[in-house]
């Protein structure tokens, strides 16, 4: 299982800040995004290709090709706006 965290506008849209998600058959960030989009509804809307979001695995920002392993903490969030 993966521990998936959501932040800011994505957390609000999904109405949850975390959930456990099965490691996808394609164990990459792209595979996870596809699996979440396949749920349809708000997931498909929030994670649409034309929307801007970022992914961190074990608290390190990675690209779509980033590999995933059971037990990883994966965070999905909009582009950051601190400072």
């Amino acid at each position, binding site marked *: 299982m993966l521990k998936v965290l959501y932040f800011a506008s994505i957390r609000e849209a999904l109405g949850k800040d975390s959930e456990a998600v099965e490691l996808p058959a394609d164990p990459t960030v792209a595979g996870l995004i596809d699996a979440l989009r396949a749920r349809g509804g708000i997931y498909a809307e929030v994670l649409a290709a034309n929307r801007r979001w970022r992914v*961190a695995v074990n608290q390190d920002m990675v690209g779509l090709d980033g590999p995933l392993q059971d037990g990883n903490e994966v*965070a999905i969030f909009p582009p*950051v706006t*601190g*400072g």
Partner: protein
Amino acid sequence: MFDIRVQPADFDLSTETALIRSRHRDVGAIASFVGVVRDTNDGTGVSEMSLEHYPGMTEAALKKIVDQAAARWNVIDATVIHRVGTLMPTDQIVLVVVASRHRGHAFDACEFIMDYLKTDAPFWKKETTPEGSRWVDARTADHDAQQRWKQT
């Protein structure tokens, strides 16, 4: 060891620079940046700002940014403080202090840290306006400011 803090509480620039001066006798320059909450953004009044972050990753990301600056310039000491929670216009939001032997390194490292903080540290601002609250959009200008430090 660099000093990195993520906290709701306010900070004081003089206290932080005095702390750095007390720790080193070879520091010849201290550059600092203080970010402040504005009362307008994108043409709309802002009455309140709330800051969300990703505990754990935030501190790690800030440490990584300061380490990158220290690998590139002479950084004898550095302090980064970023506030989270609810803030009001005129409140201080972020502090970066860099101490070096000479000013050029201190200025550059301070600006580098701020530019990378804007694009790499997991903070998100939500502002309250007369039309309700809205998440702040990331700016292309911040991405461009970070990109110019990339070494060719």
